[in-house]
């Protein structure tokens, strides 16, 4: 039981560090409102059940100027707030992906999961 909790905690911690990149990436597919982004993440196999909400994160991305927002009517529904990548967000995403890739490769190597050996 404790092991399960710890595993869940690790997943949460890992997700914490990259969920902003995931959001910026799905926004790159086109402007989206909050729930639509949850759908897009789900379609990529990333569920946030039991994890945090994307709303505070979207709020921070907006405050930091990484996304632009506008209100528009959704399909037959009420007007929604749409988020899309700003130019600053595109740069942040590019930098973030580089950081993620190098970190993931280093961790893979440390865990012996990497197919390429790192020469000493």
């Amino acid at each position: 039981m404790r092991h399960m909790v710890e595993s869940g905690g690790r997943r949460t911690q890992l997700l914490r560090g990259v969920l902003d990149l995931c959001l910026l990436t799905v926004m790159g597919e086109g402007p989206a409102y909050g729930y639509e982004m949850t759908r897009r993440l789900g379609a990529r196999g990333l569920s946030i059940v039991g994890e945090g909400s994307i709303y505070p994160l979207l709020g921070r991305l907006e405050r930091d100027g990484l996304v632009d927002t506008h209100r528009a009517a959704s399909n037959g529904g009420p007007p929604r707030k749409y988020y899309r990548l700003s130019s600053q967000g595109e740069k942040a995403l590019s930098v973030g992906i580089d950081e993620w890739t190098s970190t993931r490769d280093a961790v893979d190597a440390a865990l012996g999961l990497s197919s390429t050996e790192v020469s000493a």
Partner: protein
Amino acid sequence: MSTFVDACRKEWGRIGVPEAVANEMAADLEADLTEAEADGVAPEEVVGNGFFDPAAFAASWASARGVVENRPHTGTHDRRRPWVMAASTAVCAVVVLLGSALLVGVRHSSMSVDSVAIKRQLMLPAPGMFVVPHRLFLTQQSGALTPIGLVLLVAGLVGLGFILWLWKPWSARRNRGGSDRDIGMPSYL
């Protein structure tokens, strides 16, 4: 769903989110949750663990957006608290030092007066009557200062102990709740 949104709206009102912004956030949330329900998606999948703690979720979202006008009482209290603690610690330290100085000083002066009195009595047997009252006067003064020094010392030490007791649980508490400033996600994850 509206119960959850109402709870969020209540929290936004409490922490001073402008009404127009709160209305916008509530409308977005309501629309998203309604759409998710129509899709058969659980609300937890939309708002995460925040569904079980609407107040924390609402505060975290508003804080991340930077739309909290009046910080919650606890936030102001926490921000001011280090200064109050530091000032109280300084005052208590001064009281302890003062008490210690009085105790040490009294003992030292009492010994000095005793030695002076003895010397004068040896050198001048006759005017001992002048020396003795002087010694008695100082001894009485020393006797009065000793309990004052003792009281100051004890009061200062008690104060320092109390501050330490207050400070420790506060330090452990200060990282709970609110938003994760690193990425803007709620720390109740």
